[in-house]
């Protein structure tokens, strides 16, 4: 009985902490505008949408990886998938969650696009260093 109670509470707390933690990672990028390069590469001229997430991640994988970003990208991808599950399950019962999940997934796309911009700049610097060296 006690273990079942702890399990239920832990899962509820876990969801809350995980969502808030992912949001704290995304929060810094929300106000960051997409660079011209990212807009050209991704074709994102307006606000990011959730449908563009997979494509931006694919583009991200084409760029040389920065080790410090590996963890946060995996976490945001997990968060994006989790929101998808929420949308196709709980949101059917609670319709207000549908809009919230869509907005969150769009922010995930924006976050990944901002990271793509950083990676492009990183690759460009690397290339410039090699050319000068």
């Amino acid at each position, binding site marked *: 009985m006690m*273990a*079942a109670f*702890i*399990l239920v*509470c*832990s*899962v509820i*707390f*876990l*969801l*809350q*902490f*995980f*969502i*808030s*933690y992912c*949001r*704290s*990672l995304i*929060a*810094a990028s929300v106000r960051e505008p997409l660079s011209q390069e990212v807009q050209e590469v991704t074709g994102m001229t307006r606000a990011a949408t959730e449908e563009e997430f997979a494509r931006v991640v694919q583009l991200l994988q084409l760029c040389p990886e920065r080790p*410090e970003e590996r*963890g*946060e990208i995996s976490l945001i991808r997990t968060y994006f998938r989790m929101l998808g599950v929420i949308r196709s399950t709980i949101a059917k019962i609670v319709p207000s969650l549908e809009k919230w999940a869509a907005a969150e997934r769009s922010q995930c796309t924006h976050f990944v696009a901002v990271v793509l911009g950083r990676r492009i700049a990183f690759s460009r610097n690397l290339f410039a260093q090699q050319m000068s060296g």
Partner: protein
Amino acid sequence: MPGLFGYIVWLLGALLEAGVVVCAIRKKALRPYLFLNMYMAASLFVSVSRYNILQSYGLTSPQYMYFYYYSDALLTIFLYFALTSLFSRVFSEMQAEQYVKLGAVVLLSGTALFSYAVVNQSQSRLVTHFVVELSQNLYFVGLVLTYVLWAAVLKLRETRTRLIQLVLSLGVYFSLFAADYALRNLYPSMTTLLQILPPLFGCFLPAAWAYAFWRIPEEARLAPARLAVIR
């Protein structure tokens, strides 16, 4: 003996624990977050000691079992100190540090008394069911305390990004462990499977803390209300 995967996760965990302390030193966050860093240093020491005991006595030996579960319980108590130091930081402007310290002492004494009572009653099966139960309770108390801290962060409109990320990652860590131990208690037949998870979960906290120290400057700010799931 654990397989290659087990050893890799173990090594990764130890490296991340060392990484937290290194990141904190490099970013001049060692003293402001002393207890968090001390906890990570203690975790690293325990990881190395566990490896030595494993090599000497084997995975199924009582020596390893005793050391594993008791060091786990001790580390959790140690983590209370780290959590208390986070409470102190959040409540620093309210000059409530004395109350926080008093609360921590009461809580620790309570945990110690509770642990003693359980050990005293369960001498015949020290490293079996009761240790799992004890660890589960310790993690759950930690989880509830972290939730209280998170509520205080929201209520007091704490804006320090690094502090917020440290608290949230601690919440995720406690939730994962409390759920794992509860599952073990509910389904003892799945213990072997569920024992694989803690080392993996154990990597999350040092990775998140190393990230917070390395990537988030102390002066970074954000509105905590934006992060709340329930408002």
